[in-house]
C-alpha cells in the first residue's frame, strides 16, 4: 500500500451554496495551494454556479479544479457528485437541470432513476450526515444501509465511495465505525472529507449567521440546520490525517479520486447559434444580400464609401464566424418590426454600418465617423454584444419568439447573483442578530447604495452617519459581520434582458433552473456564460419606448398631420426648451446635472445631445471634462491639444475626452498600444477600476509613449486624463443611440406636453423623478392634473381637454381583475351600485375613496368610508337609501391632500406647499417661480419637499451634494459643498423625505440658477 503525503478536499461548499458557505473562492483556493494540496473540488448545493470562476482561479493557482455538486435526492438526502471529465460535467449539468426544472422552484430533487440515466463519468460520495447511508446508519438501520450501499455501487460501480467525516459532532465516532464496517461488508471504499463551509475556523460565526439568514431564524433560535461548531473549515493535510489515524487508505483515496478527474471546462469554446436562412442559402451570402438590400433602403444608391465599409465589416463578421449571430438579431428585430413593437439598438453595436443597414440600430455610423473596429476587430476577436431596447410591454413577447424559434433546449435567460451590499447586509444580518425589523430598516436606509465593506469608511466619512447613533458598541459587531459578507452571493436572479442562444443543447454546457416568474435561467452569470463560449443577446425592456409609442400613437390618432417620420431633425423650439433646462421627463436629460448643463451649453443640434449624455457620467466628471467642454463650445476657451497626435482623435469633442473609444484611440496613437493592450486598458477602466492596475498600466503607457517620441511629462499628463476618466463612461455609439431617443422625447415634451406626460405617467416607474414630480412639471407647463374619476378614468392616464386625467391603475393596490371589472360595468350612479357590480376588496374601495374617484358620486369621503365594511359584505342595492342625508363632517383639505398622496403617490389637487405659501412668504421664503428672477449672488431663503439627494463622484474627491426643493411651481436645484455638507448632512440624508428650508445664495450660470446652500433645516 502506497501512502501518499497529501490530501484533497472533495466536499467543499463555497458562497455559491447561497448562504451555506462563507469561504471566498480565492481564499479556499489560496489556502489549498499554500498547504500543498494538488487539487480542490467544488460541491455546492444543487448548482455549479461558481464553477467557471473556480476553474479559472484554480488554474491560476496551479491546482487542479474538480467540479461537482452536492445534490439533494428525492427524500431530501444529500449525495456528492464529482465530474471526472467533460462528459461527466455534461451529465452533471443535465442532472441538475432536471432536478430544478422537474420540481417546484427552490426545491431541486434528483431521483435514483435520473442518477442511473446520467451516471456516466460521475464519481459519487455518500455525503455528510444528510446522506442516505449515513442517515440510515445513525438510525441503526444497518440492513437498509447495506442494501443502499449496494444500490449506489450498482449505479456508480468503482466510482462510489463511503464518506468519513470527523467534524466533532455527537455520534461521529460511532458513525465512522459503522461506515468502516459497511465498507468491509460491501467492498465500497472509504474516503475522507471535511464538509468544508469556510476557509478558517474564525469564519464560523459568519457561516452561522448566514445559516440564520437562510433559515429565517435568529441567533438565539434553535434550528436543526445551525452548525454546532467551527470544525467545517479547510483543514491542512496534516490536520486531516491526524483526524483519521486508523484510516490511512481513506485519506489516500482522496488523491486517487483527484487522479481520476481532469479539468472539465473548456473556456472560450464556441457554442454560437446557427441561423438557417430560407431555401438553404448559406448564412454569409444571405447576410450579404440583406445588408445590401437594407443599405439601398437607407441610402438609395450606394457610393464607394458605403460599399467599402460594408465589405470591410462583412469580411470581419464572416472571418470571425458571426454571420449567424447577426442574422439571428436581424430575425428578432424583424419579428418586432412586423408586430409593430418599438425598439432601438444601443451600445457599441451602433458602431457598425451592417447593424444600421440591418435596421438593428438607428445610428448611421458612417455619417458619424464611428469606427467598426471599436465594436469588432480581428485582433481582439471578442464576441460582439448587441443590446436592443424594446417597448417594455412587449419585450417578453419578443423573447418568446426566440424560445419558439430556437427551442427551449437552446435558449435561456442569463442568471445573476444578487450579492450582499451595505443595505442588504445590514437588513439580513441585523435581523439574524436580533435587531428589530424597524431598526434594521432604519439603519439600512441611513447608508447610501454602497458595497458592504465600505461601511467602516462611510461611518467615518459621511456626517449624517457620524452624527447618528451608529457608532454605538451594539452596532460594531453587526457592521463587522456586514464587512465580512461583502459581495457574497445571496440568491440567484435573472439578468435584466440577457438571453443565451446556443447551437448545442444548453443542458450540456450549463445547468438551468427556474427564477422568479417561471423564467428559466442559466446557473452562470453573464461573465461566466461568455467565458463558456455562449453568445448573449440583450433584449432589454425600456419603459421610455412604451411611453414614446403611446404618445406617438395617440397623437397620430388625434392630431391631424402628425407623422413620426416627419419630426424635424433639429427643431428650434425643442432646443430652446432644452436650453432653458425644461427637461424634467425628457429621456436622459432630466437630472439636475443635465438640466444645469443644458442651461449653459446652448445645444442646437442632436450632436450636442450626444456630447451632453457622455459628459454627465462619472468618467468625464471625475476627469474634469465638463467645464473645458462648455467653455470651448461657447468659444470662451481655445481648443488645444497636449500633443498633435490627439487632434484627430479629440477634434469632434473640442479636445476633451468624452467617449470610451477615444481613450482606446489615444492609447494606440500616443503610446502605440496594440489592440489587445488597449482593450486591457478599457477593461481595467470599466471593470476592475483598481488603482494598482491603473498605475501599472500608467507606467507601461508612459514608457511606450516615450518610445514613440512623446516627452515623458506630456505622456504623464495625457495618462492623467485617462486616469481621471478611469470610471464609467459612455461609448460614442451608445451615446448617439440614446441621444436619438432623448431628442424624440424632448420634441414630444415640447410640442405635445399633455400627451407626453400622460404617457410617461402611465408607464411609471422610469426616469429620474417619480410620478409626483412629473405632475408638478406638467402643472408648471399649464396642464391640470385631474383626479381619478370612477366613470371617466381609464387604465392609463389620458388627456382630457388638454389636461391629464389620473388613471384608475394608479390607485394603490388596484389589480388587473378589479380594473377590468370597473371598466366593463360603467357607468356607476352610486358607490353601492359600484360595489354590487365590481365587488372590490375593502382596501381598493378605501383607496378609490381616498383618491377622490367617487367625489362626483358623493361629495363626503368620510361618509363613504364609513360604509366600506358593510359594502364589502355585499349588502343589497338600496341598503343605504339615506346615505346622502347623513350629515358628517368631511376630511379637512390637508387630510385629503395627504390621503390622495397615499392612495395615488401624487398630490392631485395641488401641491401641499401651496397651503403654507402665505406663511412662508411672510417669513421671507422664496418659491421656485420667484427665485428665477433673482440676480447672481442674491441671498435667499427657500423651502420645499426635499427630493432626490445624491452625491455624484467628483474629481477632487470632495463631496458635493445635489438635491431639489419641490414646491407647487416646480423645482429649486440646490448644491451643497463639502463644508456645509459636513455640518448639515444629517438634515439632508438623515430623515427620509419631508420639507426642508435652505438658506444660501443664488448662483447664475448660463440661463440657469442654483441655490448654493449655507444652512439646511428640516421643517
Amino acid at each position: 500500500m502506497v501512502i501518499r503525503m497529501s490530501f484533497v478536499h472533495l466536499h467543499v461548499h463555497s458562497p455559491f451554496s447561497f448562504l451555506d458557505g462563507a469561504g471566498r473562492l480565492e481564499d479556499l483556493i489560496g489556502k489549498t495551494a499554500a498547504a500543498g494540496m494538488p487539487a480542490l473540488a467544488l460541491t455546492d448545493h444543487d448548482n455549479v454556479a461558481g464553477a467557471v470562476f473556480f476553474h479559472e482561479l484554480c488554474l491560476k493557482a496551479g491546482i487542479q479544479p474538480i467540479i461537482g455538486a452536492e445534490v439533494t435526492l428525492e427524500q431530501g438526502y444529500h449525495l456528492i457528485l464529482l465530474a471526472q471529465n467533460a462528459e461527466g460535467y455534461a451529465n452533471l449539468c443535465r442532472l441538475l437541470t432536471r432536478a430544478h426544472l422537474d420540481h417546484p422552484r427552490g426545491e431541486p430533487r434528483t431521483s435514483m432513476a435520473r442518477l442511473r440515466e446520467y451516471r456516466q463519468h460521475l464519481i459519487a460520495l455518500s455525503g455528510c450526515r444528510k446522506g442516505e447511508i449515513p442517515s440510515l446508519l445513525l438510525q441503526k438501520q444497518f440492513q437498509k444501509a447495506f442494501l443502499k450501499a449496494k444500490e449506489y455501487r450498482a449505479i456508480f460501480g468503482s466510482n462510489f465511495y463511503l464518506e468519513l467525516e470527523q467534524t466533532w459532532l455527537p455520534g461521529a465516532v460511532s458513525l465512522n465505525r459503522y461506515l468502516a464496517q459497511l465498507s468491509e461488508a460491501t467492498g465500497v471504499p472509504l474516503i475522507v472529507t471535511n464538509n468544508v463551509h469556510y476557509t478558517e475556523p474564525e469564519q464560523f460565526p459568519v457561516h452561522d449567521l448566514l445559516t440564520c439568514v437562510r433559515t429565517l431564524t435568529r441567533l438565539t433560535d434553535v434550528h436543526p440546520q445551525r452548525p454546532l461548531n467551527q470544525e467545517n473549515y479547510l483543514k491542512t493535510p496534516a490536520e486531516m490525517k491526524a483526524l483519521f489515524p486508523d484510516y490511512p487508505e481513506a485519506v489516500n483515496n482522496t488523491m486517487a479520486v483527484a487522479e481520476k478527474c481532469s479539468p472539465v471546462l473548456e473556456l472560450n469554446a464556441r457554442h454560437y447559434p446557427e441561423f438557417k436562412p430560407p431555401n438553404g442559402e448559406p448564412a454569409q451570402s444571405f447576410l450579404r444580400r440583406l445588408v445590401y438590400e437594407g443599405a439601398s433602403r437607407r441610402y438609395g444608391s450606394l457610393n464607394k464609401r458605403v460599399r467599402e465599409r460594408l465589405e470591410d465589416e462583412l469580411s470581419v463578421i464572416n472571418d470571425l464566424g458571426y454571420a449567424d449571430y447577426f442574422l439571428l438579431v436581424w430575425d428578432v428585430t424583424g419579428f418586432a418590426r412586423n408586430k409593430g413593437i418599438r425598439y432601438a439598438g444601443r451600445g457599441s453595436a451602433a458602431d457598425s454600418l451592417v447593424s444600421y443597414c440591418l435596421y438593428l440600430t438607428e445610428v448611421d455610423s458612417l455619417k458619424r465617423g464611428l469606427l467598426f473596429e471599436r465594436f469588432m476587430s480581428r485582433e481582439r476577436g471578442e464576441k460582439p454584444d448587441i443590446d436592443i431596447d424594446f417597448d417594455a410591454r412587449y419585450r417578453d413577447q419578443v423573447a418568446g419568439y426566440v424560445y419558439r424559434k430556437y427551442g427551449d433546449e437552446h435558449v435561456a435567460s442569463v442568471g445573476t447573483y444578487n450579492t450582499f451590499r451595505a443595505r442588504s447586509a445590514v437588513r439580513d444580518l441585523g435581523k439574524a442578530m436580533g435587531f428589530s425589523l424597524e431598526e434594521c430598516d432604519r439603519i439600512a436606509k441611513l447608508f447610501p447604495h454602497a458595497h458592504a465593506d465600505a461601511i467602516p469608511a462611510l461611518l467615518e466619512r459621511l456626517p449624517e452617519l457620524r452624527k447618528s447613533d451608529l457608532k454605538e458598541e451594539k452596532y460594531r459587531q453587526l457592521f463587522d459581520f456586514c464587512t465580512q459578507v461583502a459581495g457574497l452571493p445571496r440568491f440567484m436572479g435573472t439578468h435584466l434582458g440577457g438571453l443565451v442562444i446556443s447551437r448545442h443543447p444548453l443542458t450540456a454546457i450549463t445547468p438551468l433552473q427556474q427564477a422568479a416568474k417561471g423564467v428559466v435561467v442559466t446557473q452562470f452569470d453573464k461573465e461566466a456564460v461568455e467565458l463558456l463560449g455562449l453568445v448573449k443577446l440583450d433584449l432589454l425592456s425600456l419603459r421610455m419606448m412604451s411611453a414614446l409609442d403611446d404618445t406617438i400613437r395617440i397623437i397620430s390618432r388625434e392630431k391631424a398631420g402628425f407623422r413620426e417620420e416627419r419630426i424635424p431633425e433639429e427643431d428650434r423650439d425643442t432646443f430652446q426648451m432644452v436650453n432653458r433646462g425644461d427637461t424634467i421627463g425628457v429621456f436622459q436629460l432630466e437630472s439636475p446635472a443635465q438640466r444645469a448643463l443644458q442651461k449653459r451649453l446652448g445645444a442646437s443640434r442632436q450632436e450636442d445631445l450626444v456630447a451632453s449624455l457622455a459628459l454627465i457620467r462619472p468618467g468625464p466628471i471625475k476627469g474634469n471634462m465638463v467645464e473645458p467642454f462648455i467653455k470651448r463650445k461657447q468659444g470662451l476657451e481655445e481648443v488645444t491639444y497636449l500633443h498633435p497626435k490627439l487632434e484627430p482623435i479629440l477634434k469632434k469633442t473640442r479636445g476633451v475626452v468624452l467617449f470610451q473609444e477615444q481613450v482606446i484611440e489615444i492609447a494606440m496613437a500616443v503610446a502605440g498600444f496594440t489592440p489587445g493592450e488597449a482593450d486591457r486598458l478599457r477593461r481595467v477602466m470599466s471593470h476592475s477600476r483598481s488603482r494598482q492596475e491603473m498605475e501599472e498600466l500608467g507606467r507601461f503607457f508612459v514608457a511606450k509613449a516615450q518610445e514613440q517620441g512623446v516627452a515623458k511629462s506630456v505622456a504623464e499628463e495625457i495618462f492623467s486624463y485617462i486616469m481621471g476618466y478611469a470610471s464609467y463612461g459612455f461609448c460614442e455609439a451608445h451615446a448617439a443611440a440614446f441621444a436619438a431617443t432623448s431628442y424624440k422625447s424632448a420634441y414630444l415634451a415640447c410640442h405635445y406636453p399633455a400627451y407626453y406626460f400622460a404617457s410617461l405617467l402611465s408607464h411609471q416607474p422610469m426616469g429620474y423623478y417619480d410620478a409626483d414630480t412629473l405632475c408638478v412639471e406638467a402643472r408648471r407647463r399649464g396642464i391640470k392634473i385631474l383626479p381619478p374619476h370612477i366613470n371617466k378614468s381609464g387604465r392609463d392616464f389620458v388627456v382630457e381637454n388638454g389636461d391629464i386625467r389620473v388613471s384608475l391603475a394608479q390607485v394603490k393596490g388596484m389589480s388587473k381583475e378589479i380594473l377590468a371589472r370597473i371598466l366593463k360595468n360603467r357607468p356607476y350612479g352610486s358607490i353601492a351600485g359600484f360595489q354590487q357590480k365590481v365587488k372590490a376588496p375593502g382596501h381598493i374601495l378605501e383607496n378609490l375613496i381616498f383618491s377622490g374617484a367617487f367625489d362626483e358620486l358623493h361629495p363626503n369621503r368620510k361618509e363613504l368610508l364609513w360604509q366600506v365594511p358593510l359594502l364589502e359584505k355585499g349588502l343589497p342595492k338600496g341598503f343605504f337609501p339615506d346615505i346622502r342625508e347623513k350629515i358628517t363632517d368631511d376630511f379637512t383639505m390637508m387630510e385629503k391632500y395627504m390621503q390622495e398622496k397615499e392612495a395615488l403617490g401624487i398630490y392631485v389637487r395641488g401641491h401641499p406647499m401651496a397651503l403654507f405659501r402665505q406663511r412662508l412668504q411672510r417669513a421671507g421664503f422664496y418659491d421656485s417661480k420667484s427665485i428665477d428672477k433673482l440676480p447672481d449672488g442674491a441671498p435667499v431663503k427657500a423651502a420645499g419637499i426635499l427630493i432626490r439627494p445624491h452625491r455624484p463622484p467628483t474629481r477632487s474627491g470632495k463631496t458635493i451634494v445635489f438635491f431639489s426643493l419641490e414646491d407647487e411651481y416646480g423645482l429649486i436645484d440646490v448644491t451643497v459643498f463639502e463644508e456645509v455638507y459636513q455640518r448639515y448632512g444629517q438634515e439632508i440624508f438623515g430623515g427620509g423625505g419631508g420639507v426642508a428650508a435652505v438658506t444660501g445664495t443664488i448662483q447664475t450660470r448660463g440661463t440657469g440658477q442654483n441655490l448654493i446652500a449655507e444652512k439646511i433645516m428640516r421643517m
Partner: protein
Amino acid sequence: MGRVLDRPVNVRLEQGQPVGFSWQGVFYQVAKILDCWKDAGCWWEGESTKLFYRVAVSDGGLFELYRDTRKDTWFMYKIYD
C-alpha cells in the same frame, strides 16, 4: 432521562482525555468514552467552544462532562438517571 447540572468538576486526565472525576465526594473511574463532540455554544455572547465527553463509569453510570476550551476548566454537564 438526564439532569442538566452544568457545575464545575475535578477531572483526572491522561493524554488529554478524562479517565476519572470526583463528583460530590465520590471518585468515578471512566470505563469508556462513548462519544465526544464540540459545541460553539452562544458564541455571540462571548461563550467559548466546549469539548463534550459522554462517559460510562465503572459502576455503570452515564455522565456528560465538558471542558471549556478557553478557560481549560471542566464541568459536569449532565447525569443520566
